């Protein structure tokens, strides 16, 4: 087309174009483009609707470009677990603190005898943790614990007392006398401690003594119920 090839090569190209329809068509198209360019009239070169043409070009390009792969979820997760050193340190400190508190609370619960589970303790002797637990409803206040324990002891005493009354007539006089004397002794103490606690519910020692006296009564009844 541009007469740039030497004769033998040009002859070979012409021979191929004569045989190959695809290449011949391409050659014709190119020849037309070259002819138009050579005509020199810019008005003929500018397409009638350039915007529409660019739209078409864009559409073609977009259809040919492969869509970008979506960002993987794993990457997002990795980003979530990316912490700074102070954040990690703070988290570790929090875990250590919480686990220490839980351990201390567990050890206290394990080591403290059942009789001391606030039943005979005043509000003053409560630790901060115990007060906090009581406030959020996870623990008992000393008064509630004492009431709960008292109810349990009273129920047990009633049960054993019924058993004793069933058997008491079979005992000899000396046994009956000793039993009555000592049960009265305990009852006197229980009455005395109950009165003190009514005026001073936070009296730790009296709470403890009341608990002990009721335990003594329960033991006495149980032991005599076996006779």
């Amino acid at each position: 087309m541009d007469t740039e090839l030497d004769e033998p090569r040009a002859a070979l190209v012409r021979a191929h174009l004569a045989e190959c329809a695809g290449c011949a068509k391409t050659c014709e198209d190119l020849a037309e483009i070259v002819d138009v360019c050579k005509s020199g009239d810019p008005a003929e070169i500018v397409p009638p609707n350039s915007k529409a043409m660019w739209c078409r070009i864009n559409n073609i390009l977009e259809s040919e470009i492969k869509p970008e792969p979506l960002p993987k979820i794993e990457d997002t997760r990795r980003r979530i677990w990316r912490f700074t050193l102070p954040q990690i340190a703070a988290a570790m400190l929090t875990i250590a603190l919480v686990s220490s508190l839980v351990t201390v609370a567990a050890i206290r619960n394990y080591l403290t005898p059942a009789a001391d589970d606030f039943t005979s303790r005043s509000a003053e002797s409560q630790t901060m943790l115990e007060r906090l637990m009581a406030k959020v409803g996870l623990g008992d206040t000393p008064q509630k614990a004492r009431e709960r324990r008292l109810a349990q002891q009273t129920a047990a005493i009633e049960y054993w007392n019924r058993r004793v009354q069933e058997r008491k007539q079979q005992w000899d006089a000396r046994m009956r006398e000793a039993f009555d004397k000592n049960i009265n002794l305990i009852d006197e103490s229980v009455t005395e401690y109950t009165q003190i606690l009514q005026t001073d519910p936070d009296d730790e020692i009296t709470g403890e003594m009341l608990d002990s006296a009721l335990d003594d009564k329960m033991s006495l009844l149980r032991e005599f119920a076996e006779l």
Partner: protein
Amino acid sequence: MHRLLRKVSGQPSRRKTTILLLMSVVFFMLPSGVLAQRKYSKNYPAGRIVRLELTNRSGTVTVEGWNRPEINITASLEAPSAIVQPQSLDDKIVINLIKDNAGRGDVGNVNFTIRVPYYTAVDIETRIGNLTVSNIRSTLVRAHISTEGDIVLTNIASVRVSGENLSGDIFFDGVLQTGGYYRFSSMQGNINIHIPVPSSFKLVATAPSTRAIDLGAFAGGEMRTVGDGRRIVGQSGDGLASMQVTNQKGTISFVRR
């Protein structure tokens, strides 16, 4: 003269009659319990036995430690006689008069005297009566009276010692062991503790009604009074043993051994 001769010849028969009459009077004057008393005695080779468990209904119990590998049980049974059936189990001797006499309303006192090797753990209780334990050096001495009676523990060097009654005195004489736990509790009576000075122990002593707690040679130092003098809490020496003494209506005294 004849009258005199008759008098002399009649004297031996009169004397006999008088003696017989006196004997019959003495016989009927004796308490019926003494006449009806029965004796019980049994020996066991100690072997592997390291524990004595005794539950009595009423009567006294005396346990003595000795340096012989055998256990000697003697008992005097008052009428109506109780059934006494000691059981020699694998490593202990168990005597339970409550179980052995279950359903029998009227059972007489049984007074035991038991000798055991000094290293035997002693766990004794009774509903009524005195308990005495002496010369024991073992893991446990427990003496429990359900109602009234005195507890006397003498020359004890055990790791866990417990004395409990409702009415009656408690006396402890012994040496506290490192890591040992000692508990004495009474509703009404006097509790006396005889231990050497110095002794190493932590103490919680409570006498809410009388406030009568006399620490003797252990007073001062790290002992402090709480609850308006109703309780003394503290430590003697390094506090290597723990002692809890409670007397609801009686006194507590510590005396140098």
